[in-house]
């Protein structure tokens, strides 16, 4: 189907690798005609998810691996993030209240806010499979160049 694609991408568990994953994701979404707002939302959620894997699931061990699967259709995009580290269930995680600005801990909150669906299950080899889904926003979105 035009505008549909699947692809996979792997990265080492280092925060310096996250930008490459974002570029990969954005290229596929733009090729499928998604606008800036949708691309930004998934880039942000992916960044937060990968940071959690690097820092928490793998505890900062840079030798571990993270696998991404992308499923882009004309109506929605899902990216699945698989790790083999410490299990994590975002549904069971309750972020701290937003009453007082703080110096961290916004990641899961932001992921939930900008995604239409966030789901997780146990990965086959241990660890977690996290699924982030964004439905295409209606209407025409502005296209910005990446800086």
């Amino acid at each position: 189907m035009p505008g549909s694609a699947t692809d996979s991408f792997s990265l080492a568990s280092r925060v310096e690798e996250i930008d490459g994953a974002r570029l990969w994701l954005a290229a596929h979404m733009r090729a499928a005609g998604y606008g800036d707002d949708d691309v930004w939302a998934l880039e942000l959620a992916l960044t937060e998810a990968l940071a959690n894997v690097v820092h928490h699931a793998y505890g900062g061990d840079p030798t571990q691996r993270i696998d991404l699967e992308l499923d882009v259709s004309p109506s929605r995009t899902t990216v699945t993030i698989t790790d083999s580290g410490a299990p994590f269930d975002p549904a069971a995680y309750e972020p701290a209240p937003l009453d007082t600005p703080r110096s961290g801990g916004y990641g899961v909150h932001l992921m939930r806010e900008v995604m239409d669906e966030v789901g997780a299950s146990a990965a086959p080899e241990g660890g977690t499979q996290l699924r982030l889904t964004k439905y295409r926003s209606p209407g025409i979105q502005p296209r910005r160049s990446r800086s």
Partner: protein
Amino acid sequence: MNVSTEERGGAKVVRLEGALDVAAALELRDLLGTVLEPGAKVLLDLAAVSLIDSSGVGILVTAHRLADARGAAIVLAAPPGPVGRVFELTRTNRLLRIFPSVEEGLAALAA
């Protein structure tokens, strides 16, 4: 993240470009710790920031408090729509001093 700095009207204008994300967090923290000298007036020009994540927001909150502790001042200017949205979603826009343009931010620092 790319950084350029200039003096304007008695303030340090720090122009940030690229992603203020977990990968840039340490560099951003060190940068702000350096420019926020006692009594300093600092404006962060965010116009060329492509993305900010929870790490970036957290460091800006820390910088705001550091400025208070050091008798300095820090304002943010010209955040693109998605950057401003992250401030709103985290409600940090209630603490951080955010202005639509560099000129308005500089005026606030001069007041």
